[in-house]
């Protein structure tokens, strides 16, 4: 593939790499696995890139490829599920002005999301990224109604995890 195409791709990936980091953080539990998944997502994005060429927004297309890689193609993550370290569960935000109490709540919530299964995590991720139900249903390949119903169930499940 040509040099220009590569430069163009790297530029867009660089601008959007935070999306991939967020997905990796959700699906892995340590730094090594995180980088491993990041690498696989990058490889898959690069492979699919020649067919992309602007029929959707780069980031929208990226959600799909990255989530598909995490849910379906990537194989190593399951091995590491049990070695969950504290750092990966703690939710971190940029400005530290938030009150401790709220930080604690956010960490608790994030920890609960991490306990969901792969599919539920994908739905929650898209929801947190402010995607509407149409986009969620198109990304996952399920109907909009089912996405909505599932999302409500996930919310109940999260409440149950937090307040057992």
């Amino acid at each position, binding site marked *: 593939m040509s040099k220009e195409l590569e430069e163009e791709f790297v530029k867009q990936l*660089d601008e959007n790499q935070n999306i991939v980091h967020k997905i990796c953080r959700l699906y892995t539990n340590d730094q090594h696995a995180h980088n491993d998944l990041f690498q696989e997502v*990058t*490889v898959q994005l690069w492979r699919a890139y020649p*067919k992309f060429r602007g029929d959707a927004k780069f980031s929208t297309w990226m959600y799909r490829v990255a989530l598909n890689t995490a849910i379906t*193609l*990537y194989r190593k993550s399951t091995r590491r599920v049990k070695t969950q370290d504290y750092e990966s569960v703690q*939710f971190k935000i940029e400005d530290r002005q938030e009150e401790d109490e709220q930080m604690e709540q956010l960490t608790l919530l994030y920890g609960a999301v991490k306990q969901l299964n792969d599919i539920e995590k994908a739905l929650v991720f898209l929801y947190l990224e402010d995607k509407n139900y149409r986009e969620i249903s198109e990304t*996952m390949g399920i109907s909009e109604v089912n*996405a909505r119903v599932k999302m409500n169930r996930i919310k109940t499940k999260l409440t149950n995890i937090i307040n057992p």
Partner: protein
Amino acid sequence: MDQLDILKQNWQSQTTDAPRFTKDQLGGLLAKRSSSIVKWLFIIAIIEFAFFIVLGMASHLHNQSSNIDVIGQMGNVFYYGSSLLHYVVIFIFIYLFYQNYKNISTSQPTRSLMDAILKTRRTMKWYIWYNLTYMMVVGMIATVIVIPQDPKIIELMASPKMAGHETAFYLIVLGASFVVFLIICVIMYLIYLLIYGILLRKLKRNYHELKRMEV
């Protein structure tokens, strides 16, 4: 406001422990090899195609150099006809596999991606069953036609002890080859269960989870 919305409000300002990659590092990642299940699916398929093609060729060479005139006994038309048919079918399988494999794209919705992968794996399952069935049918026919012509068997049959037991003898030979075939099938099935089980465990779990939503 529900709890998920509290997380949503702060979601965009989250930071990760992972350092951001520089553009150079990202460029370097592009050259890395994939370790995805699709790659493994491809490698396993190549091994399967190669295995049965080599097995078929080895059996041809064996028949040609055999003491017994296997090809002559079975008849040229039947022998070469069935071999030709066999390779045509293998070629069709390679074509089907290639078509299915091409349809696996990470840009499609999760559900269709999973369908495409499972369809590719099903093609390979049918390929294995086809080969085993072919081996059994041809093997049985060869047993019935060739064994009675084997000089050692003729000698054995001529002995007084075997008088009146010819049919029973051939039935036992057929039965034994059928049992051997069954054992090969079971072993193949177990190897298959193991390889694809490990490879596709996560995919199947997530596929069922997606399907469960539709109920």
